[in-house]
Each structure stands twice: as C-alpha cells, then as structure tokens.
C-alpha cells in the first residue's frame, strides 16, 4: 500500500515542481501624466472599455483586478463595477460610456451623475483594454479507449499572450493620470504517455497579479511625485 502511495506521490511532486517553473515571461510598464494619491474614504472602480469599440476584456479578468486591488491591509476601496454601472445608469453602458477624459465634464453635468459618484467616493476610474489570446500551438496528442482500457500518447503545446492596458482617470481633476500596461506570455505543454500530464502556464492570472500590483503602486505610491 505504501509502495503504491509512493508511486503516485513521485509523479505528483515532479508535476508540481515543473508547474512552478512554468514558462511565463512578463513585462509591465507605466506612463504617468498626472500626480496620483488616494485619501481615506476614496475608492476606485474597474471598468472594461466598450465592446462596441471591439474590446474583449474578460469579466473574470475585471473581477480578478478588483479582488487583487482590494486585498490586504493596504488594499484599495474598490466599488464593484456592476454596482457602479447600475448606480449611474445609463451613462456607463457600453454605448454611452465616455471614451475620453474630455467628455467627463459634460458627463458630470448630467442630472445626478456627480452626486452618485460623490456618494460612492470614487476618485479613479480604471479602464481596462485587452484580452488573453491563444497565439500559437502545435504537437500532436491522441487518446483512445477500448474495453480493456484507454490511454493517450503524444505531445501538445500552446502559447497564450495576455496583453492588457489600464487607463487611470482621476475624477478629482477630470483628467488622465496615466496608463499601466502588462504583457504576459505563457507556454503550456502536455506530454502524454498513457496518462496526459498537463503543465499549464497561468498566463491570465499572472497578467492580473502583475497589473494589479503595478496599478496599486501607481495610485498609492506617488503622493509626492
């Protein structure tokens, strides 16, 4: 029994070790155009640029950024984007949302808009643009099953690129504070010798963590810049 357990534990340990060294490369950069900083009681909201403009940012990526920005004792106060959009209906729908900061003044002049934003203490709107795409892949893997059992043989690999840009709008000055971008590339592979062993690169999760950390630093750490 112990031998059987060891026989299972060994490949699992190898798999975990290989997974931890998954092939991921990332680049993060920011371009600041204004002074940032956030006071107690102020909050941020994460939005996706409109799909009317061809943007494909995933809902789960928005939620991931929200979670990461709000996490920990230094976490920012994040207003869930759904709550924000509903509270300002219809002015942040994909069709009506402002596309540029120059439109903010007109938006704030609409009935009730400035009040709703103030009630929620929203200081920054962060607009996400980008998505995660499979950009390459190859290899061959085939599986077969019969009355006596089944198995897979071969090798497959694929590469995903997660490229996201975040534009930070400061609602205090009704201007852009700058942009932060994260470009992450990850290659996953799956060898199979009877049993397939997946080594998955968590490209989107890495892009989320990287961008959220940089956004946090961008907003918080530049009070005196």
């Amino acid at each position: 029994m112990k031998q059987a357990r060891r026989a299972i534990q060994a490949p699992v340990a190898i798999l975990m070790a290989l997974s931890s060294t998954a092939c991921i490369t990332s680049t993060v950069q920011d371009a600041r155009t204004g002074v940032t900083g956030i006071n107690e009681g102020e909050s941020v909201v994460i939005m996706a640029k409109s799909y009317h403009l061809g943007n494909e940012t995933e809902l789960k990526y928005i939620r991931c950024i929200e979670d990461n920005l709000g996490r920990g004792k230094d976490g920012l106060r994040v207003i869930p984007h759904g709550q924000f959009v509903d509270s300002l209906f219809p002015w942040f729908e994909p069709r009506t949302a402002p596309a540029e900061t120059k439109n903010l003044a007109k938006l704030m002049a609409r009935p009730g808009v400035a009040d709703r934003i103030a009630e929620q203490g929203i200081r920054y709107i962060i607009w996400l643009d980008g998505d995660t795409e499979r950009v390459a892949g190859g290899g061959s893997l085939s599986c077969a099953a019969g009355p006596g059992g089944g198995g897979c043989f071969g090798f497959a690999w694929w590469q995903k690129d997660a490229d996201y840009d975040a534009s930070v709008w400061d609602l205090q000055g009704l201007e852009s504070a700058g942009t932060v971008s994260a470009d992450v590339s990850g290659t996953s592979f799956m060898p199979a010798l009877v049993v397939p062993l997946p080594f998955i690169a968590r490209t989107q999760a890495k892009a989320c963590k990287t961008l959220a950390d940089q956004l946090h630093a961008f907003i918080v750490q530049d009070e005196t810049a």
Partner: protein
Amino acid sequence: MNRSAILGTLLAGLISGCSSNVTLQTPTIPEPLLEQIPISIGLRMPDNFQHFVHEEKVYGRNEWSIDLGRSNAALFEQLFGHMFAGVRILGPDDDPQLLPLDALIEPSIDAFEFSTPEQSNTEAFAVWIRYRLKVYDREGQLVSNWPVSAYGKSQTTTMGGSEALQRAAILAMRDAAALMIMKFDNVTRISSLAEKPATETAPAVEPESEEAADADVQTTALEGTQDEAG
C-alpha cells in the same frame, strides 16, 4: 441497470445535447439618471412582447429556442415609467383617443439575431435586437417611426452557454434602453406633442444638435435616425 437502459440514457443525452433551450428571466433595469419628459403616454404592446420566442437552427450545429418571455414588455414598462410623467398600459380594446393621453407609443420587434462562439470564433455570445417604435399623436396620426438597434455581448462562463446568451440578451435590452433615454425626444420630438394644437401633426424631423452633442459617447450605429414618419 442493463446495457440497453444505459445505451438509451446515453442516446437521450446525445439527442437533448443537440438542442438548446434558453428562457430569459424578466430583467430589471436600474432607475436611470434622466430628466423626465413631462407628458402622458399610452403604451400599446403587441402580443409577441408578452411571449416572444426565437427559434433558429444554427447550420451544422445546435437548434436553439430562446424564450424572451415577458422581458420585452417589462423593459418598456419600466423604462417608460421612468422616462415619462405618466404611462398607461393599453389593452387591445382600449381606444387611446378616448383617454387623456398626449401620445401613443407602439413598440414592436423587427428582428432578433444571435451568434454563438462557434460562429464568431470567439468565446462570446452576441445578441442583436431591432425594435421599432411608432409614436402617434392624440389624433392617431403617426408622427415618428424609429428603428432602435441594440447589441449585447457576453463571454461564456463555466456555467455554460445558456447563461452567457441570457446575459447578452439582457445587455442588448439595456443597450436599447440607453439609446432611447439618450435620443428618444430628439428623434421623435415626443415632448412637442404635449401642447400641440389639435389640428397639427408633429413634423418628421431629422435629429440634429443633440446628435452632434452625443458624438463624444460610444454610439456606434445609425439608430439615431428615423426611417419614416407619418
């Protein structure tokens, strides 16, 4: 369970897997931030607003049945309740000219279309709805005939395609609501019907200044124009 029973179950599963039924829950639109139009309108909705079902066989793929239920009716009742000072829902036997109304609005659905991730080669469902809004004055003259094209898109989730398609449909309805809030009066001039003398009819107008003013929002189509007027 014997072998034939297992095979039967598998076959039934395969057959049901070739058709998808989606039933939309009645949506609730948030209370909009807008300036109410100070007129009383009557809202007369056709039968298919109460139970609209779209059926389509995607070539080489599944058969889809999308039941929008009362969602269209609920959308217009809620939206117009917010947009106008007074709204009266008219039944088929009600005569609007005998009621104290400034205008009558008759919405209908011109077209409903959708695309699946397999068709668009993306991970999203998309829904297009084209409504048609006919506006009549107190004398029953058609003063505006406005096609409203709306679009919603939602990515597939672990909950499956049905949920994503429902969300895309609701987003399309919200899109239509946003467009109507932005441009209804500009396109149809419905507010002018409140104090119009009984012998005149509202002019068929092309949208102008507000159109230009709205150019800075992410409007994408030509829905701001009416294609005919009575």
